Protein backbone atom coordinates (compact mmCIF):
# COMPACT_ATOMS: atom_id res chain seq x y z
CA UNK A 1 0.00 0.00 0.00
CA UNK A 2 1.34 3.39 -0.95
CA UNK A 3 1.45 5.51 2.16
CA UNK A 4 1.59 8.88 0.42
CA UNK A 5 -0.59 9.73 -2.56
CA UNK A 6 -0.43 12.93 -4.53
CA UNK A 7 -2.82 14.52 -6.98
CA UNK A 8 -2.98 15.52 -9.67
CA UNK A 9 -0.18 13.50 -11.24
CA UNK A 10 0.44 16.37 -13.64
CA UNK A 11 -0.78 19.91 -14.05
CA UNK A 12 -0.39 22.44 -16.84
CA UNK A 13 -0.94 26.12 -16.16
CA UNK A 14 -0.60 29.43 -17.89
CA UNK A 15 1.84 31.78 -16.28
CA UNK A 16 0.09 33.79 -13.57
CA UNK A 17 -2.46 31.11 -12.70
CA UNK A 18 -2.61 29.51 -9.25
CA UNK A 19 -1.85 25.85 -8.56
CA UNK A 20 -3.30 23.59 -5.89
CA UNK A 21 -1.47 20.35 -5.17
CA UNK A 22 -2.86 17.67 -2.89
CA UNK A 23 -1.23 15.08 -0.68
CA UNK A 24 -3.00 12.40 1.33
CA UNK A 25 -1.43 9.81 3.60
CA UNK A 26 -2.58 6.50 4.99
CA UNK A 27 -1.31 7.02 8.53
CA UNK A 28 -1.55 9.70 11.14
CA UNK A 29 1.59 11.81 11.20
CA UNK A 30 2.51 15.30 12.23
CA UNK A 31 5.60 15.44 10.06
CA UNK A 32 4.77 16.61 6.56
CA UNK A 33 7.22 18.21 4.17
CA UNK A 34 7.04 19.51 0.63
CA UNK A 35 9.96 19.33 -1.80
CA UNK A 36 10.65 20.67 -5.28
CA UNK A 37 12.68 18.89 -7.95
CA UNK A 38 13.76 19.98 -11.42
CA UNK A 39 13.81 17.12 -13.97
CA UNK A 40 16.62 14.77 -12.97
CA UNK A 41 17.82 17.31 -10.43
CA UNK A 42 18.36 17.84 -6.74
CA UNK A 43 15.41 17.96 -4.37
CA UNK A 44 15.01 21.16 -2.45
CA UNK A 45 12.94 21.45 0.70
CA UNK A 46 10.12 23.97 0.31
CA UNK A 47 8.11 23.79 3.49
CA UNK A 48 7.96 21.74 6.63
CA UNK A 49 4.36 21.89 7.80
CA UNK A 50 3.35 19.59 10.66
CA UNK A 51 -0.09 21.16 11.01
CA UNK A 52 -2.12 24.21 10.18
CA UNK A 53 -1.07 26.72 7.57
CA UNK A 54 2.43 27.86 6.70
CA UNK A 55 3.50 30.35 4.06
CA UNK A 56 6.75 30.99 2.31
CA UNK A 57 6.63 33.62 -0.41
CA UNK A 58 4.13 32.48 -3.04
CA UNK A 59 3.78 29.06 -1.42
CA UNK A 60 1.14 28.22 1.16
CA UNK A 61 0.77 24.80 2.72
CA UNK A 62 -2.18 23.63 4.76
CA UNK A 63 -2.01 20.38 6.72
CA UNK A 64 -5.03 18.83 8.42
CA UNK A 65 -3.69 15.99 10.54
CA UNK A 66 -7.02 14.44 11.53
CA UNK A 67 -7.96 14.21 7.85
CA UNK A 68 -4.51 12.91 6.90
CA UNK A 69 -3.95 15.42 4.15
CA UNK A 70 -1.84 18.36 3.15
CA UNK A 71 -2.03 20.81 0.28
CA UNK A 72 0.40 23.16 -1.42
CA UNK A 73 -0.90 26.30 -3.05
CA UNK A 74 1.30 28.16 -5.51
CA UNK A 75 0.06 31.63 -6.31
CA UNK A 76 0.80 33.57 -9.49
CA UNK A 77 2.75 30.72 -11.06
CA UNK A 78 5.92 31.46 -13.01
CA UNK A 79 7.63 29.50 -15.75
CA UNK A 80 10.46 28.76 -13.34
CA UNK A 81 8.02 26.99 -11.04
CA UNK A 82 7.91 24.11 -13.54
CA UNK A 83 9.14 20.83 -12.11
CA UNK A 84 8.02 18.08 -9.76
CA UNK A 85 6.54 18.75 -6.33
CA UNK A 86 6.87 15.96 -3.81
CA UNK A 87 5.11 15.48 -0.53
CA UNK A 88 6.79 13.42 2.19
CA UNK A 89 5.80 12.21 5.63
CA UNK A 90 7.83 10.82 8.48
CA UNK A 91 6.76 7.38 9.66
CA UNK A 92 8.68 5.27 12.18
CA UNK A 93 11.59 7.62 11.81
CA UNK A 94 11.78 7.34 8.02
CA UNK A 95 10.74 9.83 5.39
CA UNK A 96 8.31 8.37 2.84
CA UNK A 97 7.64 10.22 -0.41
CA UNK A 98 4.70 10.39 -2.75
CA UNK A 99 5.21 10.04 -6.50
CA UNK A 100 4.91 13.78 -7.00
CA UNK A 101 2.95 16.24 -9.13
CA UNK A 102 4.61 17.37 -12.35
CA UNK A 103 3.85 21.05 -12.86
CA UNK A 104 4.32 22.73 -16.22
CA UNK A 105 3.87 26.48 -16.44
CA UNK A 106 3.55 27.87 -19.95
CA UNK A 107 4.06 31.47 -21.06
Amino acid at each position, binding site marked *: EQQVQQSPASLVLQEGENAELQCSFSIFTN*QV*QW*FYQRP*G*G*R*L*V*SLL*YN*PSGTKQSGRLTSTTVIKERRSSLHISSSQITDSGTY*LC*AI*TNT*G*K*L*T*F*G*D*GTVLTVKP
Partner: protein
Amino acid sequence: EAAVTQSPRNKVTVTGGNVTLSCRQTNSHNYMYWYRQDTGHGLRLIHYSYGAGNLQIGDVPDGYKATRTTQEDFFLLLELASPSQTSLYFCASSEKNSGNTLYFGEGSRLIVV
Protein backbone atom coordinates in the same frame (compact mmCIF):
# COMPACT_ATOMS: atom_id res chain seq x y z
CA GLU B 1 22.98 26.02 3.24
CA ALA B 2 24.03 22.46 3.87
CA ALA B 3 26.21 20.97 1.17
CA VAL B 4 25.85 17.38 0.07
CA THR B 5 28.14 16.17 -2.67
CA GLN B 6 27.76 12.92 -4.56
CA SER B 7 30.14 11.11 -6.85
CA PRO B 8 30.21 9.90 -9.48
CA ARG B 9 27.40 11.87 -11.10
CA ASN B 10 27.08 9.33 -13.88
CA LYS B 11 28.16 5.71 -14.05
CA VAL B 12 27.70 2.87 -16.50
CA THR B 13 28.60 -0.63 -15.43
CA VAL B 14 27.98 -4.17 -16.61
CA THR B 15 25.78 -6.77 -14.94
CA GLY B 16 27.74 -8.33 -12.09
CA GLY B 17 29.98 -5.33 -11.77
CA ASN B 18 31.01 -3.62 -8.55
CA VAL B 19 29.91 -0.02 -7.95
CA THR B 20 30.47 2.38 -5.09
CA LEU B 21 28.53 5.61 -4.82
CA SER B 22 29.97 8.22 -2.52
CA CYS B 23 28.33 10.95 -0.52
CA ARG B 24 29.88 13.66 1.61
CA GLN B 25 28.11 16.29 3.70
CA THR B 26 29.93 19.21 5.25
CA ASN B 27 27.53 20.32 7.96
CA SER B 28 28.14 17.66 10.58
CA HIS B 29 24.61 16.34 10.25
CA ASN B 30 23.89 13.20 12.22
CA TYR B 31 21.60 11.53 9.71
CA MET B 32 22.45 10.49 6.17
CA TYR B 33 20.26 8.65 3.69
CA TRP B 34 20.45 6.87 0.37
CA TYR B 35 17.38 6.93 -1.89
CA ARG B 36 16.70 5.67 -5.35
CA GLN B 37 14.26 7.37 -7.67
CA ASP B 38 12.44 5.54 -10.44
CA THR B 39 9.52 6.48 -12.63
CA GLY B 40 6.36 5.08 -11.13
CA HIS B 41 7.94 4.43 -7.74
CA GLY B 42 9.01 7.85 -6.57
CA LEU B 43 11.81 8.06 -4.03
CA ARG B 44 12.50 4.92 -2.03
CA LEU B 45 14.77 4.67 0.98
CA ILE B 46 17.59 2.13 0.64
CA HIS B 47 19.70 2.64 3.78
CA TYR B 48 20.30 5.34 6.32
CA SER B 49 22.59 6.09 9.22
CA TYR B 50 22.53 8.21 12.33
CA GLY B 51 26.25 8.42 12.85
CA ALA B 52 29.65 7.07 12.02
CA GLY B 53 29.64 3.28 12.13
CA ASN B 54 25.85 3.08 12.29
CA LEU B 55 23.65 1.59 9.58
CA GLN B 56 19.89 1.25 9.38
CA ILE B 57 17.92 -0.68 6.80
CA GLY B 58 15.49 1.23 4.64
CA ASP B 59 12.56 0.05 2.58
CA VAL B 60 14.38 -1.42 -0.44
CA PRO B 61 17.75 -2.69 0.87
CA ASP B 62 18.13 -5.88 -1.18
CA GLY B 63 21.25 -5.87 -3.33
CA TYR B 64 22.77 -2.89 -1.55
CA LYS B 65 25.26 -2.44 1.23
CA ALA B 66 26.15 0.82 2.87
CA THR B 67 28.85 2.07 5.15
CA ARG B 68 29.18 5.26 7.17
CA THR B 69 32.89 5.67 7.71
CA THR B 70 32.84 9.14 9.25
CA GLN B 71 30.31 11.78 10.24
CA GLU B 72 30.72 13.24 6.76
CA ASP B 73 30.92 10.20 4.49
CA PHE B 74 28.27 7.66 3.53
CA PHE B 75 28.84 5.07 0.81
CA LEU B 76 26.44 2.88 -1.11
CA LEU B 77 27.86 -0.37 -2.46
CA LEU B 78 26.48 -2.54 -5.22
CA GLU B 79 28.66 -5.64 -5.23
CA LEU B 80 26.88 -7.53 -8.01
CA ALA B 81 25.07 -4.89 -9.99
CA SER B 82 21.92 -5.92 -11.85
CA PRO B 83 19.90 -4.09 -14.54
CA SER B 84 17.09 -3.59 -11.99
CA GLN B 85 19.46 -1.30 -10.11
CA THR B 86 19.57 1.14 -13.00
CA SER B 87 18.26 4.26 -11.33
CA LEU B 88 18.89 7.78 -10.10
CA TYR B 89 20.41 7.68 -6.64
CA PHE B 90 20.17 10.51 -4.15
CA CYS B 91 22.02 11.04 -0.93
CA ALA B 92 20.59 13.32 1.75
CA SER B 93 21.48 14.50 5.21
CA SER B 94 19.65 16.04 8.15
CA GLU B 95 20.46 17.10 11.65
CA LYS B 96 17.78 14.93 13.20
CA ASN B 97 15.69 12.09 11.88
CA SER B 98 12.36 13.85 11.91
CA GLY B 99 11.06 17.34 11.86
CA ASN B 100 14.19 18.61 10.18
CA THR B 101 14.89 19.67 6.65
CA LEU B 102 16.62 17.15 4.43
CA TYR B 103 19.42 18.40 2.22
CA PHE B 104 19.90 16.43 -0.97
CA GLY B 105 22.84 15.90 -3.25
CA GLU B 106 22.66 16.36 -7.02
CA GLY B 107 22.09 12.69 -7.68
CA SER B 108 24.09 9.87 -9.25
CA ARG B 109 22.71 8.27 -12.37
CA LEU B 110 23.64 4.60 -12.64
CA ILE B 111 23.07 2.45 -15.68
CA VAL B 112 23.66 -1.29 -15.47
CA VAL B 113 23.84 -2.95 -18.88
